[in-house]
């Protein structure tokens, strides 16, 4: 399946170089950064627009922006200041107040607050705010995050569900919405970034997450659901942020994760006896990275490391 480039005929190697996929002087594979950026531009630029079919993602506008911002961040590509400002404006427009004291981000203007779009919006704002504070949009983004943290906290607490679950406390994706491990992950990530990881919000979450671990070792979306890569990532990452991953069945999780790598393609499948998919390179690959860190924590018994993960960072409240 994988070809050793040194065994390729010269003409084929030259062709790969012409396409920009292979380095001029070595046999290193190159990432087509400019093309990726051009593709991502659709989400924010007036030069290139999304196709009509993207109307189906009208309730996911913070997601589009997050995917683009995060990808550019990873590709080391900076957007023009004006574009960053426009993105900031759109994100702010996705904020909805539920009451005077609480609110969250929905998928678009006047849409009701939702855990996933809040996750995407907050992460996007963090990327913007992490630019030089000499830039107007970066300063404004940081200011805005400080402003919304308390109303966000109040709203996230109202997503907690204790009565309808057998073990621990679940989080709903939105008021009256579904409960599954994605919601816990979205909420705890936002909380951790904004220094809001308090027991009032996080109490009982770990017990619920652990109850979602299946006999296979992975995690399902809810108790008894099938072990699945997307949910495995959310549960693993969330438990790690709560400093509770070591209380799950770590050997079983480790085995399930390694079994998800397909020997033919090299990538990961999402579930047993299902096909490989690029997205699982993130969900499963990411979970592997976190589990490795957890194993390292256990083996080195780093007390100071655990303190950092578990302590409530509370600089502003």
């Amino acid at each position, binding site marked *: 399946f994988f070809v050793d480039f040194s065994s390729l005929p010269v003409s084929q190697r030259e062709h790969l170089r012409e396409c920009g996929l292979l380095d001029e002087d070595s046999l290193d594979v190159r990432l087509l950064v400019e093309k990726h950026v051009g593709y991502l531009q659709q989400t924010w630029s007036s030069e290139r627009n999304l196709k009509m079919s993207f109307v189906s993602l009208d309730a996911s506008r913070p997601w589009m922006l997050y995917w683009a911002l995060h990808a550019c961040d990873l590709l080391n590509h900076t957007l023009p200041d004006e574009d960053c400002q426009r993105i900031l404006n759109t994100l702010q427009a996705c904020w909805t107040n539920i009451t005077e004291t609480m609110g969250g981000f929905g998928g678009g203007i006047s849409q009701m607050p939702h855990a996933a779009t809040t996750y995407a919006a907050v992460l996007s704002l963090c990327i913007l705010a992490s630019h030089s504070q000499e830039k107007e949009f970066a300063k404004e983004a940081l200011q805005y995050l400080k402003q919304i943290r308390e109303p966000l906290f109040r709203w996230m607490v109202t997503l907690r569900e204790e009565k309808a679950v057998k073990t621990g406390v679940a989080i709903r994706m939105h008021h009256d919405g579904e409960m599954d491990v994605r919601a816990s992950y979205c909420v705890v990530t936002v909380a951790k970034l904004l220094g809001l990881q308090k027991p009032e919000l996080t109490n009982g979450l770990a017990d619920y997450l652990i109850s979602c671990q*299946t*006999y*296979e*070792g992975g995690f*399902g*979306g*809810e*108790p*008894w*659901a*099938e*072990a*699945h890569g997307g949910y495995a990532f959310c549960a693993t990452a969330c438990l790690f942020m709560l400093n509770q991953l070591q209380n799950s069945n770590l050997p079983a999780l*480790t*085995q399930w994760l*390694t*079994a998800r*790598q*397909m*020997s033919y393609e*090299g990538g990961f499948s999402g*579930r*047993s*006896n*299902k096909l490989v998919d690029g997205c699982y390179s993130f969900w499963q690959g990411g979970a592997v990275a976190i589990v490795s860190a957890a194993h390292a924590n256990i083996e080195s018994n780093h007390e100071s490391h655990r303190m950092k993960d578990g302590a409530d960072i509370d600089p502003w409240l």
Partner: protein
Amino acid sequence: IELEYLDGVLQADGKNYHAWSHRQCLVQLMAAGTADTDIWKNELTATQKLLEQDVRNNSAWNHRWFVIHQANNREANMTAATELSTEIDFVRQQMQLDVYNESSCRYFVALLKEQCTVNDIAQIQLPTLLELSEVPDDAAAFWSTVVDLYEQIHDYGPAKTLLQTKLTKIDPIRQNYWNWRLQQLTIKEEEKQAQAQS
């Protein structure tokens, strides 16, 4: 009627995550309203039908685990749907159909580890499993099951041998993992010897 509808959906798309989630929700609701245990027996039959069509349908296996545990707690309470020995025999049969099948093998290990004593596994279950005829050397799912069961009964020697002679060789993509298991087993072996001496 809703269950019949779901049957139709699952015939078309046997692994649809949302359909299964809906089914589990529904079954729990239905079961909560009655002392009747038929629903659990029926669900077990439903999974069996799907497994007859595709013994590798992991969603069906997962649903079976849910059914035999009656979604109540982590301990099996199998008198409603089936007996433990019946279930173990069923799973072993399925394993024999395809010894490369990760779904049936993982289910088998988990069931035994949860439900059987170390003695049970050592005296009965593991020997019975090893009687399965002509299992190819490269059936990683099967041999990793055997490793796990040897580990469960604290018989580390054979487990290590299997890892060294089979799994590290036939499943090279997981070589690092199998070597890590070897290390872990060696640690357990040393602890066991230390305990025996003291």
